[in-house]
């Protein structure tokens, strides 16, 4: 059954028990290729779709979803949403969007990747693996050499007459290599996000991954203490993404964010400005409306260190009225709506990363962190993370470091920013798309030997 028929059926079946209904439909086509030792080791194709229902009855809001689109499923979908709504808080609900005219702008998401044949994508990955393998004799294995492209269609239809849709296409290539010398083992990785795989420079990817692995051979801890540090863009992105739930209006209202009551206050150095821009040219999370159908808006979250506001979806409660900022998104049809940014960008400075490193007499350069899902707490703002990088001595990079942790609090970290570099990098799209430059901070706690 196609979505048009299915949605009519759901709205009809629900009309006697439910006051308002909203269907969220996504379909995805994906292709994944993994190359190992010059063979296609894993090849995955998919074509899948699913529907989520949000319904408001006489009682509260209920959610349901299904990956099967037939008459029986439509019935279950309506009944489950109705049953789920019986117990939910009657004083808090989302507000569905009224119908508006929307014309999908195809230029936002050209379908480039479809031009390239599967064989050419495979060849691209074979080439990448070969390049990485041949760059340095100390590279013993290409652990992962993976290509994926994902074509997503999204449609939102509700009983207030809204019916809008868009689509997006995105691909990424990731490579991870293992290097060995004597008893030392290290790994290095690199990735690129793209819409057009023909524009990917595989030799650059191979070089970045290999150089990282080689440079980390023989890494060992530094002694515990407070260090002046340069934090690489890729690491800063990860930290920001981890703390993003603290910028969610609903978490703030529920007392689940350390940023509560800090609106208008300085939470960072004046060099830090963070914007959320759904219309960013070429942004991988650029879109005109969120998953509730609300129009997205450009906004400043932090202006020269001052906290300007939070991200909201359309959920409103009796005592706290908040207006959607167009940031209500779902991780999948199986998730409820929560807030996330589209493209989140930390404004860049004017200095080159090596100039910033050049000013550090004694310190460390943090190039990679791990343990984000457990060592970072967005409620308290605290973090304690596994890190690796290099010593900085008299403005130059020295020996590699691993086996240390960096610890602190986000506000403390942002306030200690002394310099912002000009090297904006966008990470792999996850819970939004994050772009940030490298930063220099005057002090961070390090635990090591």
């Amino acid at each position, binding site marked *: 059954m196609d979505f048009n028929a299915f949605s009519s059926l759901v709205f009809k079946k629900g009309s006697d028990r439910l006051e308002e209904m909203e269907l969220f439909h996504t379909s995805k086509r994906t292709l994944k290729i993994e190359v190992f030792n010059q063979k296609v080791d894993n090849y995955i194709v998919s074509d899948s779709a699913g529907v989520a229902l949000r319904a408001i009855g006489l009682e509260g809001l209920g959610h349901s979803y299904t990956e099967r689109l037939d008459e029986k499923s439509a019935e279950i979908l309506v009944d489950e949403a109705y049953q789920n709504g019986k117990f939910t808080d009657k004083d808090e609900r989302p507000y569905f969007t009224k119908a508006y005219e929307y014309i999908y702008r195809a230029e936002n998401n050209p379908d480039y990747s479809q031009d390239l044949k599967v064989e050419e994508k495979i060849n691209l990955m074979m080439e990448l693996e070969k390049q990485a393998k041949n760059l340095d004799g100390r590279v013993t294995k290409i652990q992962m050499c993976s290509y994926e492209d994902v074509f997503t269609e999204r449609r939102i239809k509700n009983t207030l007459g809204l019916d809008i849709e868009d689509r997006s296409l995105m691909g990424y290539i990731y490579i991870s290599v293992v290097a060995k010398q004597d008893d030392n083992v290290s790994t290095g990785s690199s990735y690129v996000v793209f819409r057009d795989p023909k524009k990917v420079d595989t030799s650059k990817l191979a070089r970045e991954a290999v150089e990282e692995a080689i440079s980390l051979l023989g890494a060992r801890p530094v002694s515990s203490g407070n260090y002046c540090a340069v934090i690489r863009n890729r690491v800063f992105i990860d930290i920001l993404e981890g703390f993003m739930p603290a910028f969610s209006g609903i978490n703030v209202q529920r007392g689940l964010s350390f940023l509560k009551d800090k609106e208008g206050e300085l939470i960072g150095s004046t060099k830090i400005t963070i914007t959320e821009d759904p219309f960013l040219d070429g942004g991988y999370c650029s879109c005109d409306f969120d998953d509730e159908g609300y129009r997205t808006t450009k906004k400043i979250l932090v202006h020269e260190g001052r906290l300007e506001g939070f991200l909201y979806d359309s959920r409103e409660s009796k005592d706290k009225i908040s207006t959607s900022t167009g940031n209500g998104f779902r991780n999948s049809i199986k998730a409820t709506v929560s807030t996330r940014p589209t493209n989140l960008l930390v404004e860049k400075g004017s200095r080159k990363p090596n100039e910033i490193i050049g000013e550090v007499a004694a310190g460390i350069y943090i190039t990679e962190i791990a343990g984000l899902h457990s060592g970072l707490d967005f409620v308290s703002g605290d973090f304690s*993370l596994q890190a690796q990088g290099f010593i900085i001595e008299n403005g130059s990079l020295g020996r590699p470091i691993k086996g240390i942790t960096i610890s602190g609090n986000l506000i403390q970290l942002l306030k200690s920013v002394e310099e912002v570099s000009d090297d904006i990098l966008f990470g792999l799209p996850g819970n939004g798309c994050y772009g940030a430059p490298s930063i220099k901070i005057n002090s961070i706690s390090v635990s090591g030997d």
Partner: protein
Amino acid sequence: MLNRIMVERVLNEALSRGGDFAEIFFEDKMTSNIKLVQGEIKDSLSGRDYGVGIRILEGTNSVYGYTNSSSEKELVDLARSLSLSMSGEATVRPQTMRETLYSENNSIKIPISTVGKKEKVELLKSAYHAAKGYDQVISQVTTAYMEEEQKILIANSDGLWTTDSRTRVRFAVSATASLNGELQQGYYAPGASMGYELFEYVDVDKVGVEAARIAKAMIHADYAQGGKIPVVIENGFGGVLFHEACGHALEASFVSKDASAFGGKLEQEVASPHVTAIDDGTMINGWGTTNIDDEGTPTRKNILIQNGVLKSYLVDKINGRRMGMESTGSARRQSYRYPPTSRMNNTYIAPGHMTHNDMIGSIERGLYAKNLGGGSVNPATGDFNFAVMEGYLIKNGKIAGPVRGATLVGNGIEVLKLIDGVGSNLKMGQGMCGAASGSVPVSVGQPAIRVSSITVGGRKEDD
């Protein structure tokens, strides 16, 4: 469900242009989640996951496709499009399928579908009040109830036709303590592969109180001072140490590609003689227990390390081919959206004889890690981390004041040799483990153990 004639046609099509093995994985899963915040149900969500994955192997190469459709035409089409990447001629014909059913490790007394939502909501409210009422520093409490029933069918060209049904229930409380503008969290989330009878064993009010107790302890705590010190890691979720430091690196997906710190070390001493470690997919009603793995191989109890000597890896079919080893029943996947690979089920360090006093009494300055959070590892280097959710200083052989926010980091190869004491109080903890084949439920466990030296992440205020 799929019928047999249809499955035969799909497998035939899959092997029509080469390949030596074809498999169908069908999944139909019902889930329900209810979440309460500030005394009110904020989200109640239920639904149905439904889809089919088809896999063809040719030696150690794999092609995989999935779809939500279960119509014969679309499945045959998918099998055909996958078969196009094979070399040309059919070499293997699917064998006649014989239904095989395996022993039931997870008996269900009270099916979740027989219990109404109202009763589940009452549990959430009760735990909320228990946690909220624990102490006035508790400023917010979130409670969550999760259930799922996953029905799968696996059929393959070796003649296998088997099914499994997996019911899981979990109850989680997250308590937030607030004092002088600071926030700290406590979390406790027991779960099992059983029906609603879980609540005959789990008292939800106690779950709430435990989360609140941790939050309260941590709001009154100082930050840990970092450095390399001896650590005593308490039982239960403390098993995350072994899971990260060694378990992942024993997965064939890394070992077979020479990307594991433990590769090529079978029968070698890799840990201190105190360490015997087991991964048991058959543990009755365990959170990570299934009857069969996601390739249809019966799960089993695998001894990974015996008295410090490495005995086994965790092996799935395709990586087993690379390594010349049989499957250990360890192939797992989150859903039909993932091809399976080798993963852990219920992993633990076996009990020893040391008492708490023996472990703590001899430490002059160290850390007692009472509750642990998640972690991660780079299997190639063995470098791992995991978070301490509730920690205390050890001073002069005694447990002293609470400390916050410590992450422990180390190297798997090194740390296993530094385990110099294993207690007798084995207990399991439940979590979700994410890797190449998605997020799967796993148990981790251990008795209390002592590590003679490990790096504790902490904060040192500027002098």
